[in-house]
């Protein structure tokens, strides 16, 4: 295996980059301090949920709305990607997931409106088939099922909010004997239980008396990890109606499934993914990055690769750090950043401010080849993807996964060619 591409960061952007580069037959290594935001987020691909950001109604058709976004914010990473490559990235991921037996449903010209764990309608572009029956454009009555032992998902608030918005919804919290007296009931734990047929049978038996009018049944997103599709189908068959998942508090089982699929695609193509490897520094020569150092228990370990991709995420991912003196820095290469000049401008008064807090737009500026810029290209063989990039508000736009996927896709192809 040749040392072609080193990707720093194992979130959606980093893994997509590595996967695409590995498709070109490149020798790829991913190093990461830990897993990325896939483990926290909903396990869907949000491309553009609200635009303008202060709009109360979600974007219905991202493809049709994206030109407005790009006109208003020509610096947006989507501007560098372009609509065609964004569509190709979505297609690519859909193909990969469908080959893995875990289809992602949707297309760029339509946002789903899916229920959240508090019963809001969440706009998203691609969602796993396990979530689709929650579609809120359909007004069929639903039963939402929680588990008494799972504190990361409560069906009551979700059901009442959905009812308030015109979707007949009831809820039940199961208290299964199999879980009684258990110490740990996390989503991941439940997902493993769900892969056991006798546990599923107990769930079905407990749910059935509550079905009533419900034409569909919602669960927290815990319907299996590796075997999600089979678990989902089995529950639908046993309950005799569509079943859907709703993402709850992190960790995100649905996000972990995407992570697994991408990771195995990289590994299948000969690439390697390592976590617990924090990049702490680098060496450069003649305008090129010659090595990246990671922390190990002994001395720093050296990674020498032809091309290096920075996909460490923004402030959330830890790729961009801040301190009390108001300094904003990029952790590995100390790259120049775009960020609010003055710490007094970092925040707005309200947590839920519609425009978001300016500090979170901090990031790396890149040229059309996704090379970090400082007036000119900083290092010839260094690229950046995902939420490390400057100039957009991923959470207010609901573009978190879309930007990561699309920029990772483009950069993966750039460094793979």
């Amino acid at each position, binding site marked *: 295996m040749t040392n072609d591409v080193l990707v720093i960061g194992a979130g959606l952007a980093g893994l997509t980059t590595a996967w695409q580069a590995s498709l070109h037959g490149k020798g790829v290594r991913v190093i990461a301090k830990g897993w990325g935001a896939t483990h926290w987020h*909903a396990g869907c691909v949000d491309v553009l949920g609200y635009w303008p950001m202060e709009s109360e109604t979600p974007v219905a058709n991202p493809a049709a709305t994206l030109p407005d976004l790009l006109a208003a914010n020509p610096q947006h990473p989507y501007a560098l990607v372009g609509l065609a490559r964004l569509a190709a990235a979505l297609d690519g991921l859909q193909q990969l997931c469908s080959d893995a037996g875990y289809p992602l449903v949707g297309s760029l010209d339509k946002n789903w409106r899916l229920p959240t764990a*508090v019963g809001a309608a969440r706009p998203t572009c691609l969602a796993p088939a396990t979530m689709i029956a929650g579609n809120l454009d359909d007004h069929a009555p639903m039963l939402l099922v929680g588990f008494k032992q799972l504190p990361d998902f409560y069906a*009551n*608030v979700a059901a009442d909010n959905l009812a*308030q918005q015109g979707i007949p919804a009831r809820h039940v919290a199961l208290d299964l004997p199999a879980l009684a007296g258990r110490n740990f009931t996390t989503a991941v734990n439940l997902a493993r239980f769900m892969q056991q047929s006798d546990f599923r049978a107990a769930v079905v038996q407990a749910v059935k008396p509550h079905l009533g009018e419900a034409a569909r049944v919602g669960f927290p997103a815990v319907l299996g990890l590796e075997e999600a599709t089979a678990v989902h189908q089995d529950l639908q068959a046993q309950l005799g109606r569509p079943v859907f998942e709703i993402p709850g508090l992190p960790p995100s089982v649905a996000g972990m499934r995407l992570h697994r699929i991408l990771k195995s695609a990289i590994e299948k193509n000969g690439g390697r993914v390592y976590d617990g490897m924090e990049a702490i520094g680098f060496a450069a020569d003649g305008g090129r990055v010659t090595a990246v150092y990671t922390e190990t228990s002994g001395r720093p370990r050296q990674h020498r690769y032809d091309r290096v991709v920075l996909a460490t995420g923004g402030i959330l991912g*830890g790729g961009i750090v801040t301190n009390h003196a108001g300094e904003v820095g990029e952790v590995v290469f100390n790259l120049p950043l775009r960020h609010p000049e003055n*710490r007094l401008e970092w925040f707005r008064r*309200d947590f*839920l401010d519609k425009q978001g807090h300016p500090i979170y737009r901090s990031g790396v500026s890149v040229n059309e080849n996704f090379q970090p810029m400082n007036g000119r290209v900083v290092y010839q063989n260094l690229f950046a993807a995902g939420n490390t990039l400057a100039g957009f508000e991923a*959470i207010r736009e609901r573009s978190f996964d879309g930007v990561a996927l699309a920029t990772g896709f483009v950069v993966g192809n750039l460094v793979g060619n």
Partner: protein
Amino acid sequence: MRTIQTEVLVIGGGATGTGVIADLALRGFRCALVEKRDLAHGTTGRYHGLLHSGGRYAVKDPKAATECIEENVILRRIMPHCIEDTGGFFVVTPWDDDAFGDRFMQGCRDTAVPCEEISIPHMLREEPHLNPGISRCFRVPDGSADSFLATQSVAALAQAHGAQILHYYEVKQLIRQGDRVVGALCYDLVKDEEVAVHADLVVNAAGAWAGKIAHTAEVEVNVRAGKGTMIAASYRIVNTVVNRCKMPADGDIIVPVHTVSIIGTTDEGVPDPEHFAIEPWEVQLMMQEAAKIVPGWHDLRMLRCWGGVRPLYQETKVADTRDVTRAYTLLDHETRDGVAGFITITGGKWTTYRQMAQVTVDRVCEKLGTARPCTTHETVVPNPFEQGHGRQHHNLGQRLADVEKEEAFGQLICECELATRADVEHAITQGEAKTIDDVRRDVRVGMGPCQGGFCTYRVAAIWHELKKPSIEETNVTLRDFLQERWKGLMPILWGPQLKQERLDELIYLSVLNADHLPGPRASRLGPAMYEPGTVWESDHAHV
């Protein structure tokens, strides 16, 4: 209009007001207390957490020092569940004058504050994170005190003796008939209605708000608000209260409280006790001063920042608020202003609340023509959380032991502070909680490193289940609490805490889409917001 009739009405549910009502009730008065929010909503819930030994005032204000040490001894006896015996150090850092140590020792001797000098190696053995450049260290009986629990306990004691406690009752206007105050017109924020409370005597214990209250009866009481800013760091970097050994100034005390260490404070006059900004220069100053006591403080994770307002009573104008005496003020408006039926008690410290209550109720007895002795100094204040439902802070270790014993891990609602579902249910159903923030004061949810990231959602759902409000009310309760947490985070967001906050955004906006739920964005029970600070550089010659 609804009316309530009582003998003595107390305004303000801080340490002073609850202290007064407990003392009144113990002496057999019929009495009611009105608090515009939750108990300890004011300065009492936003203070530094220090049970003063008196050391801080030993040189500058001997009278206050003596009051403190007297009360320090009493409070340890009557409310042990609220006090952690951390002990305190006074340390001479390289920035301080070595000779002040001798004045300090002498001051302690004169005011009967127990004090012994210990060696620096000894100090470092006990507190290895302290600055090794410290040249002298004195040990005093400071402590760390939980004012939320104390206020609740004292209020419960009052209730057990027949007092009525009315939360979310805001006094709008004192009712005056001729030369007498005969009650107060209140607004019930929860029921959204006006209530008239009639009383033979009104005690104004509204802290920094006391001037405003008096003003509504056309009595002028000049109480200035002196804002103090504090920052909590995410660890108990010290287990002892550490004071700089010098004349009291800004940022010279670190107090370990529960799981955090708190540096404070500043002291700035503000026009309004409710609305003020925490300025970036204050934060910088606290960070800088803390690092003089604990080098490396900057690298700790800052959890939260808040401001409390000192009620500073003055008959004359004084430029620097710290020079106004800290000893308390009792005003009998009959003799002072010719307005009968009205007393104001303000100033002082948390540590001296009991003594303040005692002199106030002595005066009440005098006014009402009865002689009843005070017993609060010998009445143990029970822990209201002890019966039936067994668990309450005082320390995280005890909570962990309980959780392990009951194998209640799966039902941890707040992993940071180890609050279980049973704790939260108890606070919602048995307590007086009207908001999630009130639940926080009871069981500390949302007070740890994630600042409500995980538990806000969980508590909102349990709230919805048990209280059965309309869904829109639950939505706004949730949003109010998110905003409440944000308020104290914004001034200290950098480093890991900023990252944490972005995760909280990912959860509440992106995963849950809570900003697009039906209902109002904020309610009248939500936090009073301050604007973000704007002053980066201080032109104050504080240090």
